[in-house]
């Protein structure tokens, strides 16, 4: 065998609901109408929350915030495929997923207002707090999946990341471990085309991110990230594959960051409004709305009700957050270790004697 082809790989892309809201019924996941409506309601709620958070920041009522505008389907549909017993590891741009998981929206606002209590995930919820250092949640998510496998728990772990995260060493080490030990984990990459001002073309020379899975010996698939059905199906299948002991999957959800990177960013400095316009036309919510309408599952009254409910939910969260008493400075120390060592007791004492107005030793 002098110069021979020893392996062939095919890369698939999944789309079920196209830009016009046309649906491939063959492929459509068998969701009851109410479940499809639920997806829609979550996506509307996610966007409502996002718009409110953005406004609050502009009004000086919230710290830096990372918008998910345009990524609602990718987040909501993927998270909706999780069981409560599954674990979820977000990056820092998944309020849509956290909302579906049932994290009180108050806490998301709290986190972005600079209050750690926003990361105190409720006991019943198997979610990791937001991770700021890009890609570092990936090996940890793999490790949690490893823990589940070793304990024999029939659960799966869903790890979120962005396109920029795929360039980091921890992406590589996390996925490689998942492959070698066939861990019950699904890596869900929201490829929103940008890492702050760095476009995908500067992130990798590969035409797709999905093909990176080939390096780790497990399957990767690209899905239309603005197609709630495709996202749901790919994620649900991958999670089930994981739960049943068939190993990891990498999903590239192709979507777009319609807004600035965060409220501290100005995207007009580095990208064309034309590109943004094109992607707005692919809006995930509008797409699902059209579908529901065709199915007779949507009308103005329903829309009214959905937006109204979303608005109330979000306003309530804002009120709750803004009425939360300030955090106790002691918290700086309280959670460093389970028990506070002597040297930290001394430092805490210094803090307490009038917020560090007394001996700092």
């Amino acid at each position, binding site marked *: 065998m002098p110069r021979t082809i020893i392996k062939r790989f095919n890369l698939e892309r999944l789309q079920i609901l196209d830009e016009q809201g046309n649906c491939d019924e063959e492929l459509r996941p068998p969701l009851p109408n109410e479940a499809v409506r639920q997806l829609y309601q979550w996506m509307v709620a996610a966007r409502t929350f996002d718009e409110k958070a953005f406004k609050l920041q502009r009004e000086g009522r919230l*710290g*830096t915030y990372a918008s998910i505008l345009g990524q609602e389907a990718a987040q909501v549909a993927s998270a909706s495929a999780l069981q409560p017993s599954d674990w979820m590891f977000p990056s*820092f741009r998944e309020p849509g997923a956290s909302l579906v998981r049932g994290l009180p929206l108050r806490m998301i606002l709290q*986190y972005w*207002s*600079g*209050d*750690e209590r926003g990361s105190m995930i409720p006991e019943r919820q198997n979610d990791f707090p937001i991770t*700021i*250092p*890009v*890609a570092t949640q990936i090996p940890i998510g793999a490790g949690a999946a490893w823990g589940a496998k070793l304990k024999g728990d029939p659960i799966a772990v869903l790890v979120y990341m962005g396109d*920029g*995260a795929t*360039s*980091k*060493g*921890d992406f590589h080490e996390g996925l490689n471990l998942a492959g070698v030990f066939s861990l019950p984990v699904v890596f869900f990459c929201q490829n929103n085309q940008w*890492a*702050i*001002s*760095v476009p995908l073309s*500067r*992130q*990798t020379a590969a035409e797709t991110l999905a093909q990176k899975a080939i390096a780790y010996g497990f399957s990767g698939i690209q899905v239309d990230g603005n197609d709630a059905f495709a996202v749901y199906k790919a994620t649900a299948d991958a999670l089930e594959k994981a739960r049943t002991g068939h190993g990891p999957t990498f999903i590239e959800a192709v979507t777009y960051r319609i807004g600035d990177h965060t409220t*501290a*960013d100005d995207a007009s*400095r*580095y990208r064309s409004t034309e590109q943004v316009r094109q992607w707005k036309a692919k809006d995930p919510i509008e797409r699902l709305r059209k579908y529901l309408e065709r199915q007779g599952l949507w009308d103005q009254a329903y829309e009214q009700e959905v937006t109204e409910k979303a608005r109330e939910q979000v306003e309530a969260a804002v009120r709750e957050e803004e009425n939360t008493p*300030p*955090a106790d*400075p002691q*918290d*700086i*120390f309280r959670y*460093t270790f389970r028990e506070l060592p002597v*040297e*930290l007791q001394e*430092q*805490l004492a210094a*803090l307490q004697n009038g*917020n*560090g*107005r*007394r*001996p*700092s*030793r």
Partner: protein
Amino acid sequence: MAKLTLVEAINLALKQEMAGDPRVIVLGEDVGKNGGVFRVTQGLFELFGEHRVIDTPLSESGIVGAAIGMAVYGLRPIAEIQFEGFAYAAMEQLVCHAARIRTRSRGRYECPLVVRMPYGGGIRAPEHHSESNEAYFVHTPGLKVVVPSTPYEAKGLLLSAIRDPDPVIFMEPKRVYRAIREEVPDEEYVIPLGTARVVMAGNDVTLISWGAMLQVALQGARLMGERGVSSEVLDLRTLSPLDMDTIVESIKKTKKAVIVHEAPRSCGFGAELVARINEKALFFLEAPVERVTGFDTAMPLPKLEKHFLPDAPRVVQAISRVMSI
């Protein structure tokens, strides 16, 4: 002579050095088209083009590793780590290669590399955007560590850092980025690494600080001045190499010292300062050297950071303690 912010002063230094030396390359995340998330590299992309002002993938170890390769090959790369709290991933490259290639190769190769990184708290930034880890770098033999405190200082020190034949960690006090304006000469000027400066002369107590904490030290000094205590305030400028003579000289005069830094206390650079003072001026001390520092806890998110960061009242307290002995 224009009044510039620290951001503008660094930007000016970069422009001048890149214009003067074609070997100088800037690389990092968002340093090109976007001009850096703090606009420190603004305009460089337009002036010098995408081959000398390079937007890289999200890859701290790769950025620093590649910059080491460029430096070894004969360029003078300036790598930016977007926030100091993201430098951890580059530690292996910094410790194992940047800091060692000269000694490993017995001088055959050198690594004239500058790694710029905004550091420190007080700007209500998200988690890991407010760290202050100078001690890791000072504890790494083969690295130089520079921390400018004002616009004028920043320009002169950065030019020295870029021209230095060895790797320099250049930590920029992001809290000062736009907080101060001061006259910065258009002309080139260098401030040699390893020389501290006396910012305020005094006789009663020596305040030692660097970077963003210099302003806090000065506030404390002024408050105590009103109470008739004369403080001598030192700005170390470079932590490695360290200008110990200036420190000892001052302490021999004042007999008391207070160190101010925002990094966690244990094994912070303040500890090294106390140790060297102990070795070189112990018997001049009339009081234990005071450390006003961050706590041995994680840097809090914005809502609580003010309780963590040293401030003028804490400096005043520390001065009062050393004076009252």
